[in-house]
């Protein structure tokens, strides 16, 4: 009963915030439609942050509110759910579930433990590397949820409880940060990437590989300092670990089974076609969009289903929240554009971003995005700010849209400081493994460090004319 009352209270807070925006005087230059769209933004931001209902339901409420507020009709509000990018995300979630179901992820974790030889720094590197690699294709929170129990088991091999706890904090934070970082590399890696890609595709050809050209280098540059900084921030007084149990278990599990190989091959082929499908399509004169990532993803899922490798029961529990958050973000972004709210916000931000040297603009968007994502859902951040940056770039020949859109979107990864920042942070907060004070302290340091690296990368790319 108390829980229900708590949920109702949070929903009332969401409604109160929305109504407050509606009741405020309309600022000069903003239309009545624009104000209602901003109220929809307030609703979206607060319902994702406060979550009075589970994330998938929250995502579904956003299109309804857009219609209620008169900034979209039902067709406009629900149309994003059927977009290929959403189907691609669904396909990648289903494929990742096949990996998890057949124990491939756990086996890979055991391999990385054994490969570390028991050295803590190498163990952290291995676990973080695996988390990053998996989260390029899997949902980031699901990656963390699968790997954290492995970290719990490893830490129990340390007899001293205090030392075991230190190791656990190090590994869990490493897994959570790396699961976020891995999501930078691909369109499927994060909801904000998917949203930003959709808006970028409206102004220029934008394929799966186009995102990877910038997302992958960003991951490769931010990952090493994150690993190094974690080792400095969370000192562990364990020099080496007993990995015999992992070795023994790996021995029992044996080499990859046929079904595990099959899942990996299907996933590998899908990834190759996601990256190179458009090239194959044009060089082999195949029907247009036959090799579109969404089609490839669904063919892979269909194959696994026909082979009996995944069942509907297996995929029912995938992260529907991510799926609906992207659709909600896209619907909100389009509503803000249609209503003129994006233009109004663009005019407000133009002096800060458009009138400043690129480095200042980069610092502003990266830090603003990284801080904002601690309290606002990353898909919502992208949905609101990506169209603004695209609009700014259209009016300002001194920079192009991807120079700011990509770093802004990638910086939504760096929400490390609060449980509301991401599913990963909420998860480790719920487990109580990391103290809230440590989450904020380590999170803020790594946010600043990662943001500076990201700014340096994109400034360098712009100076060299590579973006």
């Amino acid at each position, binding site marked *: 009963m108390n829980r229900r009352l708590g949920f109702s209270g949070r929903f009332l807070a969401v409604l109160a915030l929305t109504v407050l925006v509606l009741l405020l005087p309309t600022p000069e230059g903003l239309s009545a439609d624009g104000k209602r769209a901003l109220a929809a933004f307030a609703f979206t931001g607060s319902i994702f942050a406060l979550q009075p209902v*589970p994330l998938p339901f929250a995502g579904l409420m956003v299109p309804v509110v857009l219609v209620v507020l008169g900034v979209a009709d039902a067709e406009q509000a629900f149309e994003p759910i059927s977009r290929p990018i959403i189907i691609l995300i669904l396909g990648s979630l289903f494929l990742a579930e096949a990996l998890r179901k057949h124990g491939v992820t*756990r086996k890979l974790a055991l391999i990385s433990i054994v490969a570390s030889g028991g050295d803590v720094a190498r163990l952290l590197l291995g676990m973080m590397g695996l988390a990053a690699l998996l989260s390029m294709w899997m949902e980031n*929170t699901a990656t963390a*949820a699968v790997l*954290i129990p492995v970290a*719990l*088991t490893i830490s129990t091999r340390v007899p001293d409880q205090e030392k075991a706890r230190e190791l656990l904090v190090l590994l869990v934070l490493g897994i959570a940060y790396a699961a976020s970082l891995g999501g930078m590399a691909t369109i499927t890696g994060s909801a904000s990437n998917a949203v930003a890609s959709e808006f970028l595709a409206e102004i220029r050809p934008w394929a799966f590989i186009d995102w990877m050209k910038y997302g992958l280098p960003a991951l490769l540059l931010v990952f090493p300092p994150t690993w190094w900084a974690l080792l400095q921030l969370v000192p562990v007084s364990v020099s080496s670990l007993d990995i015999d149990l992992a070795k023994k278990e790996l021995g029992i599990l044996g080499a990859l089974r046929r079904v595990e190989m099959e899942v990996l091959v299907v996933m590998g082929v899908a990834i190759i076609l996601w990256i190179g499908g458009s090239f194959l399509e044009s060089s082999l004169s195949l029907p247009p969009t036959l090799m579109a990532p969404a089609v490839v993803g669904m063919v892979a899922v269909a194959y696994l289903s026909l082979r009996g490798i995944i069942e509907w029961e297996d995929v029912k529990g995938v992260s529907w*929240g991510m799926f609906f958050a992207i659709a909600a973000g896209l619907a909100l972004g389009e509503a803000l554009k249609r209503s003129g709210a994006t233009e109004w916000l663009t005019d407000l931000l133009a002096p800060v971003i458009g009138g400043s040297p690129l480095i200042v603009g980069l610092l502003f968007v990266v830090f603003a995005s990284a801080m904002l994502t601690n309290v606002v859902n990353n898909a919502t951040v992208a949905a609101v700010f990506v169209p603004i940056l695209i609009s700014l770039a259209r009016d300002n020949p001194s920079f192009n849209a991807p120079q700011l859109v990509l770093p802004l979107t990638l910086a939504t990864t760096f929400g490390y400081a609060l449980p509301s920042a991401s599913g*990963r942070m909420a*998860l480790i907060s719920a487990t109580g493994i990391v103290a809230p004070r440590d989450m904020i302290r380590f999170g803020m340091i790594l946010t600043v460090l990662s943001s500076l690296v990201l700014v340096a990368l994109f400034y360098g790319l712009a100076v060299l004319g590579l973006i």
Partner: protein
Amino acid sequence: MRVLVIGAGRVGARVLLQLKKNPRLTVVTVDPRERPYAVEQGVIESVDFHNELSPGDLEGVLRKVRPDLVLVTTSGEDIGRTGVPGLELLVESLRGELEATASVPIIAVARTGA
């Protein structure tokens, strides 16, 4: 026969009710909460061990109890925070980790819609 039931929430309460039908079974319970659902509903008087659902926390319990069978009934709801994305998956992965690492038979009891 000694049966260790991990989790005394809604699923655990239903499992415990069934186990009570056989008085020859020695049932031991683990739950981190003082008054989980099974206690509130009077299915059991109290929980025997207040440990978390993690391999490290449960290792000591397994050594002490030496059960013939372990039934894991914990769900995300029992951890105390519903609606956290990935929590059910984390709990499921923890159950899998326990199944893989423990030397006694461990069976995860899934939550049903009822």
